[in-house]
């Protein structure tokens, strides 16, 4: 089973992508999409990406909800900062966070989350020391930010990937 379907989730995602692009649910497209999904999963074996297993699907839903709320909230906050930038000096700064995630896919997802929420920008991650450097636009105090990211994102990502 593992031999024929090396990355079942990837194949499924490619099938969904194919059906979405073609805007159809006809049996022909489903067959073609599945064949493409499986073929590309084989091609992926040669690239030898890190294998990760998703563990906790309930936590994924919680995390997705949290990210959606944070995207809305931080969009509003950053708009406020930009519109008030003329009158009030922007208090931005760097925050260094000790991250214990090592899984590549988890880190990639964390990067997507931090980038998708305006106001935080991923700058650098040091694999040896595990220190993540981010830049925060509206910095009130650094310790609170590092705490927030550890609690809100790192903990659920750890549960999902490790």
């Amino acid at each position, binding site marked *: 089973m593992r031999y024929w379907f090396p990355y079942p989730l990837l194949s499924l995602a490619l099938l969904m992508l194919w059906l979405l692009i073609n805007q159809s649910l006809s049996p022909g497209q489903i067959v073609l999409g599945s064949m493409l999904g499986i073929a590309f999963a084989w091609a992926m074996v040669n690239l030898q990406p890190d294998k990760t297993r998703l563990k906790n699907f309930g936590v994924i839903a919680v995390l997705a909800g949290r990210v959606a709320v944070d995207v809305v909230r931080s969009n509003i906050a*950053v708009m406020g900062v*930009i519109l008030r930038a003329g009158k009030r000096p*922007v208090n931005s700064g*760097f925050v260094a966070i000790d991250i214990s995630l090592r899984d590549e896919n988890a880190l990639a997802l964390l990067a*997507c989350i931090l*980038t998708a929420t*305006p106001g935080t*920008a991923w*700058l650098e991650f*040091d694999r040896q020391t595990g220190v993540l450097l981010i830049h925060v636009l509206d910095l009130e105090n650094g310790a609170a930010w590092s705490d927030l990211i550890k609690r809100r994102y790192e903990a659920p990502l750890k549960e999902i990937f490790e």
Partner: protein
Amino acid sequence: MSHLTDLPTWAAIPVCILLLLGSAITLIGSMGLIRLKTFYGRLHAPTLGASAGTILICVASMITFAVLQNRWILHEILIIVFVILTTPVTLMLLGQSALYRDRIEGKNDVPHKATGEQPDTSGMDI
């Protein structure tokens, strides 16, 4: 333009609101490029367009064509997904190069690496 006149009012109102909101947010994000004064601050501004702007405009497009063609239109979801997946790449490249340069030039407001070697500046002429 015959398309748009076919759109019934009950659909046109939410579509307009979403479009205006999305473009306003993107505009504010672009204004941020001028109003924020530091490079790192400017990194944040375009993400407004990449997150909320893209999502709102894509949802408006989904509603418009779903109503006009009378079926579910979902491929705008792919635009949202790919924009969110790919923005970190550009942002990290820009951020890291700025960080690297500031460290070599010795600007005092940039944090140094916790441990590990400092970037080798000998023989570099910046």
